[in-house]
């Protein structure tokens, strides 16, 4: 047999095994492609041939999906695929120099595959390790606390082709760094207790969940628990922790009341995509509080009448998959997941874990659902909303990890208890992911209403120039605003809290964020697809010293367009970091304005760079110096 045929046969065997594991269901396309890649190091054309044959889906569909996700490769990327996290905090911790060091040590250019095909080195969006960066992913395994010494060790391991499984275990150690705990991080839930409490609770007199029609299908009639559970969520005044702050009780009730067509059911989805640069609290919740999260999902299923749930876990947290599966398995054994939960006949609910593959947009709930269905992660047209037309067009709730954890606490202790913490309009606590210039980065849990100044004092931040709250799509605060508070009344947040001291260049911070949005735009709609690229080019133009006040007007115009015309929140907020920093840190921009009038972005000398590289020249004769043309450089 020719070598090629053997290869094709080997690949086909892998594909068949993976496809069988996923029940030949092409809704699992993303999971199938991901696992094929785990076995083959990439997705070779022979794998697509086989998938096409065994799943009976067109090649265009498979390639369309594979092409969407940053972590899926239809070209070989080496045995070792190294990605440096490129959040602004990684930059501040020196990731660029470390990446250069590794590249020169291993003789490979960033973004390219080494000539022997052994490895590739590139950058990736924030990997959620900001409190222990700089960080990287090697074949989707996270390595934290990079130093020059560690980089040299990694180079040696790669050179000697040491399998990843034999690399020193402490490379892969990820810390929780819990610095301040409150009702959630201090909770010591006995698995099942919250479910037992929810089941025992009877609907109170002043029943808020008026609609009794959709009592959980399959449950014996007369059980009041589901309605009572929903009442407690409403009493708790719980609002979503994923950023938008939607009222959880209303979402659940809308899903519970959504009519089901024949053969349909309801779904519970936990959003663990945690892609906002600077956020890492969901990682810790899933590492050390997984029972709380799963219990919250199960309580939600009980309240809305769902039998299936999904945890959508970002690909960067691949290393959490096995531990989380073990927790699910234990819960099934303990009869708090699976069939006849707590021994109640018909109380069935189970959870599957789906992994993302490097696409921030899949945190947007309708894009997430598309991705769960094995498609390209582009946001849907809404209405209809997921509560009526979600997963496979069926009623679905999507909530953040922290929202479900809070729901478990509410199931256990009741809504009134929960509402007594925090402020009037912002009940409960919020976990902040603190990183950047401070002594003690990590997780800080506060009742809502805490001031920025308090957080800065607690984490040991000095000489602070700015705080970015809720990541690039959030808000940038200057010291004059540090008395402001975290909460839906003032500064809502998904949790990121990134600190910049006075040595930081706020223009470069904004530029990093703009690059992030450009890289993560899904490309579906014109304003964001093209607009984020135009914005990136403008910021790079300023960075290169070719900016003029004219460019500010252009940025303002793009902002208008992105806000009013974009299809989803990514486009709506893509200009925020620039507008905030122009307004509050204008000198950082003004330093970069070469002239008062328009300056073209085109740089004659830069245009010769490709020619210089090809000829291997870098002498003065290979450059065009601006002065020679009488320009004031």
């Amino acid at each position, binding site marked *: 047999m020719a070598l090629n045929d053997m290869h094709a046969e080997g690949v086909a065997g892998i594909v068949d095994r993976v496809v069988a594991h996923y029940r030949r269901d092409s809704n699992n396309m993303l999971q199938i492609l991901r696992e094929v890649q785990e076995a083959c190091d990439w997705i070779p054309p022979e794998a697509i041939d086989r998938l096409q044959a065994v799943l009976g889906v067109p*090649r265009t569909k498979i390639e369309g999906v594979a092409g969407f996700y940053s972590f899926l490769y239809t070209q070989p990327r080496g045995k070792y695929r190294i990605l440096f996290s490129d959040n602004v905090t990684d930059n501040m911790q020196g990731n660029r120099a470390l990446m250069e060091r590794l590249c020169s040590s291993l003789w490979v250019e960033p973004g390219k595959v080494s000539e022997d095909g052994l490895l590739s080195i590139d950058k990736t969006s924030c990997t959620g390790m900001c409190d222990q960066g700089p960080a990287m992913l090697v074949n989707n395994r996270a390595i934290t606390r990079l130093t020059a010494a560690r980089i040299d060790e990694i180079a040696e391991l790669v050179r000697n082709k040491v399998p990843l499984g034999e690399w020193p275990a402490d490379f892969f150690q990820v810390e929780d760094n819990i610095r301040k705990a409150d009702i959630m991080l201090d909770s010591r839930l006995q698995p099942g207790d919250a479910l037992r409490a929810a089941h025992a609770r009877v609907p109170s007199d002043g029943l808020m969940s008026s609609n009794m029609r959709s009592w959980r299908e399959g449950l014996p009639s007369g059980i009041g628990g589901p309605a009572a559970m929903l009442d407690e969520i409403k009493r708790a005044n719980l609002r979503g922790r994923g950023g938008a702050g939607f009222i959880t009780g209303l979402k659940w009730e809308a899903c519970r009341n959504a009519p089901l067509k024949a053969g349909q059911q309801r779904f519970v989805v936990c959003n663990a995509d945690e892609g906002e640069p600077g956020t890492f609290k969901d990682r810790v919740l899933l590492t050390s509080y997984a029972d709380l999260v799963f219990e919250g999902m199960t309580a939600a299923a009980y309240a809305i009448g769902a039998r299936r749930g999904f945890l959508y876990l970002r690909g960067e947290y691949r290393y959490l998959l096995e531990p989380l599966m073990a927790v699910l398995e234990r819960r099934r054994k303990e009869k708090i997941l699976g069939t006849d939960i707590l021994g109640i006949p018909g109380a069935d609910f189970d959870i599957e874990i789906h992994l993302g593959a490097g696409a921030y947009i899949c945190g947007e709930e309708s894009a997430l659902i598309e991705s769960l269905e094995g498609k390209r992660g582009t946001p849907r047209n809404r209405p209809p909303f997921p509560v009526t037309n979600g997963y496979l067009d069926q009623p679905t709730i999507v909530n953040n990890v922290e929202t479900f954890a809070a729901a478990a606490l509410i199931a256990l202790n009741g809504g009134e208890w929960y509402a007594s913490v925090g402020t009037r309009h912002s009940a409960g606590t919020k976990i902040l992911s603190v990183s950047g210039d401070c002594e003690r980065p990590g997780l800080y849990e506060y009742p809502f209403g805490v001031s920025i100044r308090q957080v800065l004092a607690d984490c040991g931040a000095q000489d602070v120039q700015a705080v970015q709250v809720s990541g690039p799509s959030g808000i940038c605060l200057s010291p004059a605003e540090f008395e402001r508070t975290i909460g839906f009344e003032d500064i809502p947040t998904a949790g990121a809290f990134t600190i910049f001291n006075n040595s930081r260049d706020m223009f470069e911070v904004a530029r990093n964020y703009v690059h992030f949005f450009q890289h993560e735009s899904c490309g579906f709609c014109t304003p964001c697809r093209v607009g984020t*690229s135009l914005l990136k080019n403008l910021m790079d133009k300023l960075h290169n010293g070719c900016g003029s006040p004219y460019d500010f007007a252009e940025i303002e115009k793009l902002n208008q367009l992105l806000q009013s015309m974009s299809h989803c929140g990514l486009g709506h907020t893509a200009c925020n970091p620039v507008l905030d920093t122009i307004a509050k840190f204008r000198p950082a921009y003004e330093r970069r304005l070469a002239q008062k009038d328009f300056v073209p972005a085109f740089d004659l000398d830069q245009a010769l760079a490709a020619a210089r590289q090809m000829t291997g020249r870098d002498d003065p004769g290979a450059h065009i110096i601006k002065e020679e043309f009488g320009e004031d450089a």
Partner: protein
Amino acid sequence: MSQTFILDGKTISFADGQTIMQAATQAGVFIPHLCYHPDFKPHGSCKLCTVKVNGRQTASCTMRAIAGMVVESDTPEINAERLALTQMLFVEGNHFCPSCEQSGNCQLQATAYHLGMMSPHFDHFFPNRAVDASHPDVLLDFNRCILCSLCVRASRDVDGKNVFALSGRGIKTHLIVNAKSGQLADTNFTLDDKAAHVCPVGVILKKRRGFAVPIGERTYDKQPISATAKAVAEER
């Protein structure tokens, strides 16, 4: 058809389930659009058709009409934003209209005229996109693709072939064809496919037909694109 809404001060009737775009077109009111086509499920991606409904912007090709809603469309503010979107599409691809067979029949070009576009305004991206001339009857010039996905929908929903799909992400989004080689010749695409006739710009072109209709006498040379809605209304 008793329900109505207001569009730019005009009362428009609509039937249950109709979108703003459908109802407006039926009434002879033109709303600029590129990814919408009456024969296919709306996509909502180009955003040219954006209107203001009760003060909030939304795509009129996907938004269902609701009785009593107040819609603004033909305003200087919205048209300025539509113009900017059109300019974005021009700089994103490579559009050299004078050498394009579709010139005069192209919806992008006609929309640019309609909106009074005088220059592309933004810096050109000049992307590097190869032409696919492998098919005996059809040429694919991806330089002009605006990613409207009409060919994708036509091939999938009408032809039942899935010849086209979008791949990539963000600014790297691009059209692919259903063949391991990536070449149209290796697909089952034919000139009889609906997908061969829906491209609003000059990507999917019949080979060996050049200037059959002289420039100056083509569709949008004779009447502006805004007249298409009136034609629909008159046909009824």
